[in-house]
């Protein structure tokens, strides 16, 4: 049996369903974002933690040139070390049918017998390698999927220059490669880069590494610190070409998932705050209106003995029903969004089983936050209404007090039409309502700036990376440093129109106690392929002595132009050098240091050596070039610009599509909802006034114009504000997701702004139109009978 007061509540809700729905929808946007983000965080964190635990993901990692297997025992003996797994990681190129360019990747070794102790694989399809087998390989899922490989297929691989054919036994996942991508790449290119696993014996034989290892994975003893272990490992590996050990937090694949969790955390706080504030205000506006309409009803309830408390609760319930509806919608929306985003994550992150798990506490938080915000928004108004003495409440509200608006007091009153005056005086009389409508519309506008700006930023990164910085068509990497004479051989390949040699080396840059392990890349004086460019887009010519740093790296180190840095080579004879920082390069992916090719060679003291080359091609001879390239065994990696660009475009288009539609939906809901509620409330509050205008002979359009003028004024205030807010919000969000792995430039185009303005105006116009249609049903006679 429903109490009679609750029955009244239901009927009031039914009457105000349009406005209640608008409030619930806006609230639902915030709660959906909260539920989605919190759930995704718990899905990602939970799935990752389980994956790491089940598959024994290591805690410390190190790469080195080569060390005898018995060194692993000395590392095992270091205090704080629990498990040590020594294995091999070597570069490989592949010749795939149907792919005219060579793919490349890494081959990792597995114990010849038995499972590895650490970083165990997860078998997705097919079978494990047969014990003691030869000629079998396991392939990472991302690469297998991108190239439609199945267990039983054969793969032709160039291992240390020797072409061999392998049988694909199974398709696997590894906790080391949740983010399976070329080192330093911002986005995966799974078609041309893959990870492979073979028995130790096979890899070691091909690379003459038998009895040695070049990669280490370590777990820590309970309670042991990571730092001393890393220091100990580095000390032991130094004579063997150790490239510096690092912990999980610096593991490239781990970092990518952590970065995503960080972005989700920002979303899970920022968005709900903004949406719920708007929703709380909308609730306040709807309820204030209801309270003034029901002034006499409240008086009667009180006259018959209902307590203030009962009345407060009655009206709070009204708000709570909207919260519950918002939560229901938000829950549905959050789950739908989350499931969509999980599909998107599958493009980037390879987990055995990443599923959207609805986070129970997130729903509870959403409920609490929703109820809390609307209570804050309406409690005061409800309490004031309930406290009114019945005798006073029985009388109609005193007539609204108006005065000439600020604008009119500036002396331009004569220029204003009557409907304009009505509009601005109404706005000035209810500044809070106007302010929040403006805020809501501005929010909608701002929301639309972000995704387009992201998209423009990504497109700029791609153009910058491949049209400004790297103007070559192909990058080649060599199996190991080779004599510069190899360059001449490569230059003679069919279709090559120009070639520039390159040299890269792993180094550690030190400055005043801070250091970073990075790739040192070569630049050629007067080179036309790889270049370094400063913030203003000017080419930086490599100094004969001195180093150029990514400006992000300089930031991280706290170094300025003119400071002296210490470069520590992590390969060869591991020399040290003091070099001045001569310029800062603007780059968006990864962090790097650049030096003159000859300066690098002088520094490393290995003579005139190259590790790769960049080429431009006569595109009509591309196929011929690629066929010839496959015959050169010393080439380990091939990166073709157009292929990578295409892959990036596809991946970003897919993920940006999802994100854009989310933001678009939210923006439209907010713009529509805010305008709808504002117009409905104006219409209800001023039904008598508007009906009077109709009675004295104004047409429906003329009366509509009075309402529309108000909305237009609000929109004119809100849209520029929204563009400003959107610019700020985008600057903040892009700034906060910028990392050492990827940085997006801030790009605001006319299109981005115009799109936001047009969408918000269309949504607002439609919304206003829906309300204005109600002017038709304005009851002219009833409005004349009595004041409310």
């Amino acid at each position, binding site marked *: 049996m429903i109490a009679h007061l609750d029955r009244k509540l239901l009927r009031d809700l039914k009457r105000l369903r349009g406005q209640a729905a608008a409030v619930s929808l806006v609230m639902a946007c915030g709660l959906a974002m909260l539920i989605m983000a919190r759930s995704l965080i718990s899905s990602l964190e939970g799935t990752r933690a389980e994956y790491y635990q089940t598959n024994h993901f290591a805690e410390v990692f190190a790469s080195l040139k080569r060390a005898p297997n018995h060194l692993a025992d000395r590392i095992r003996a270091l205090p704080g070390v629990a498990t040590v797994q020594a294995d091999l990681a070597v570069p490989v190129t592949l010749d795939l049918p149907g792919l005219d360019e060579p793919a490349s990747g890494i081959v990792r070794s597995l114990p010849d017998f038995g499972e590895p102790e650490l970083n165990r694989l997860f078998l997705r399809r097919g079978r494990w390698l047969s014990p003691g087998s030869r000629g079998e390989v396991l392939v990472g899922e991302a690469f297998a999927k991108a190239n439609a490989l199945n267990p039983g297929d054969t793969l032709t691989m160039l291992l240390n220059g020797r072409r061999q054919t392998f049988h694909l036994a199974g398709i696997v996942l590894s906790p080391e490669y949740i983010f399976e991508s070329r080192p330093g790449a911002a986005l995966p290119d799974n078609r041309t880069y893959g990870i492979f696993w073979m028995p130790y014996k096979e890899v070691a034989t091909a690379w003459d590494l038998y009895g040695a290892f070049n990669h280490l994975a370590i777990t820590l003893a309970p309670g042991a610190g990571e730092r001393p272990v890393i220091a100990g490992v580095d000390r032991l590996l130094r004579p063997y070409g150790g490239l510096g050990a690092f912990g999980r937090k610096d593991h490239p694949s781990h970092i990518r998932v952590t970065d995503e969790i960080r972005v989700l955390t920002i979303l899970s706080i920022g968005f709900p705050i903004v949406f719920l504030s708007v929703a709380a205000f909308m609730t306040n506006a709807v309820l204030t209106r209801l309270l003034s309409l029901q002034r006499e009803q409240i008086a009667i309830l009180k006259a018959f003995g209902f307590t203030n408390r009962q009345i407060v609760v009655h009206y709070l319930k009204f708000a709570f029903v909207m919260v519950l509806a918002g939560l229901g919608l938000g829950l549905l929306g959050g789950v739908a969004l989350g499931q969509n985003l999980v599909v998107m994550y599958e493009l980037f992150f390879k987990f055995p089983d990443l599923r959207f798990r609805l986070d129970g506490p997130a729903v509870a938080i959403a409920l609490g936050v929703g109820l809390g915000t609307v209570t804050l928004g309406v409690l005061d108004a409800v309490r004031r209404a309930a406290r009114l003495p019945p005798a006073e409440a029985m009388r109609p509200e005193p007539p609204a007090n108006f*005065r000439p608006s600020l604008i009119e007091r500036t002396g331009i009153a004569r220029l204003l039409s009557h409907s304009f005056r009505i509009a601005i005086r109404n706005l000035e009389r209810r500044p809070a309502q106007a302010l929040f409508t403006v805020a809501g519309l501005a929010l909608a506008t701002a929301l639309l700036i972000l995704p387009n700006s992201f998209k423009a930023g990504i497109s700029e990164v791609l153009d910058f990376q491949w049209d400004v910085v790297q103007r070559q068509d192909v990058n080649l990497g060599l199996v190991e440093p080779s004599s510069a004479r190899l360059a001449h051989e490569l230059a003679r390949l069919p279709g090559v129109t120009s070639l520039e040699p390159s040299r890269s080396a792993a180094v550690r840059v030190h400055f005043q106690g801070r250091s970073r392990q990075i790739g040192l890349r070569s630049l050629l004086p007067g080179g036309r392929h790889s270049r370094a460019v400063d913030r203003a887009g000017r080419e930086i010519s490599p100094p004969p002595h001195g180093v150029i740093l990514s400006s992000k790296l300089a930031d991280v180190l706290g170094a300025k132009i003119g400071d002296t840095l210490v470069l520590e080579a992590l390969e060869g004879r591991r020399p040290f050098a003091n070099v001045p920082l001569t310029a800062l390069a603007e780059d968006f992916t990864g962090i790097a240091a650049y030096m003159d090719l000859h300066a690098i060679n002088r520094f490393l003291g290995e003579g005139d050596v190259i590790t790769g080359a960049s080429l431009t091609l006569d595109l009509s001879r591309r196929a011929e070039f690629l066929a010839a390239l496959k015959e050169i065994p010393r080439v380990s990696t091939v990166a073709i610009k157009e292929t990578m660009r295409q892959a990036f475009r596809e991946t970003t288009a897919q993920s940006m599509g999802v994100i854009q539609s989310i933001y678009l939906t939210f923006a439209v809901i907010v713009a529509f909802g805010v305008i709808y509620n504002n117009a409905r409330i104006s219409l209800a509050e001023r039904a008598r006034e508007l009906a*009077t205008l109709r009675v004295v002979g104004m*047409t429906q359009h003329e009366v509509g114009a009075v309402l529309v003028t108000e909305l237009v004024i609000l929109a004119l205030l809100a849209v520029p504000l929204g563009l400003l807010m959107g610019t700020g919000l985008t600057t903040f969000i892009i700034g906060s997701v910028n990392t050492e792995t990827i940085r997006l430039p801030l790009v605001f185009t006319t299109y981005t702004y115009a799109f936001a303005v047009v969408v918000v105006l269309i949504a607002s116009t439609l919304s206003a139109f829906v309300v204005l249609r109600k002017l038709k049903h304005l009851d002219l*006679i009833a409005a004349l009978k009595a004041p409310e």
Partner: protein
Amino acid sequence: MSRLPAHFPLLNPPSPTPSNPPAARGAPVFHVRGLTKFYGEGATQVRALAGVDLDLHAGELVVLLGPSGSGKTTLLNQLGGLDIPTAGTLRYRDTDLTHATESELTLYRRESVGFVFQFYNLIPSLTARENVGLITEIADHPMPAEEALGMVGLSPRLDHFPAQLSGGEQQRVAIARAIAKRPAVLLCDEPTGALDVHTGIVVLEALERANRELGALTVIITHNAVMADMADRVIHFSDGRVLSEHRNATRALPATLRW
């Protein structure tokens, strides 16, 4: 004729005006025959007008008397083009209001009708001058808002907002708003219903003067029988039809009325 033309009101002290003989007026402004209005349907159907026959002439001041629920407001709404009758004939001059469309009715109200309501219905966000100005903006040959407000004695209160005016003053603004467009018809629904006697008389004086000086057919509906004395013609209304009507030999001055 010894009197000065009516538009020099200050030189003409108001005096009891003889009722004009109907024959002098020619065709009626309103021609009403068998006017019927039903509200609702089926069991809940209510008959508000039950076949009204009536002719109303230019310049007349007609008081429509009747108890509440007698249908007089319904009749006024039909005359004012706020509503459409269920059956019967309703003609305003050459226009058939019975079959007028929504936009024709709007145009009719805009050009020909001035309304005065019991609860004034002013726009709270506009001053007295602006409330009148709002209407003169859309009228064809309006008088200046200041002149209309002067006619109702509100010249000193031009720039006051409704909330700053007394009830009587608000009603006089409403009258100024109604007459500023020089309407052919002035329809007043209980114009003094919300006012005390003294204020009510000031309002009636304003109406009487507007009728006299502008020559608009003025229909005042009321349940206050005292007001019958100021009319040219008094129509008694009951149960949705005309019960009786009579003509006053002279119109009493509003100032002489007491209730």
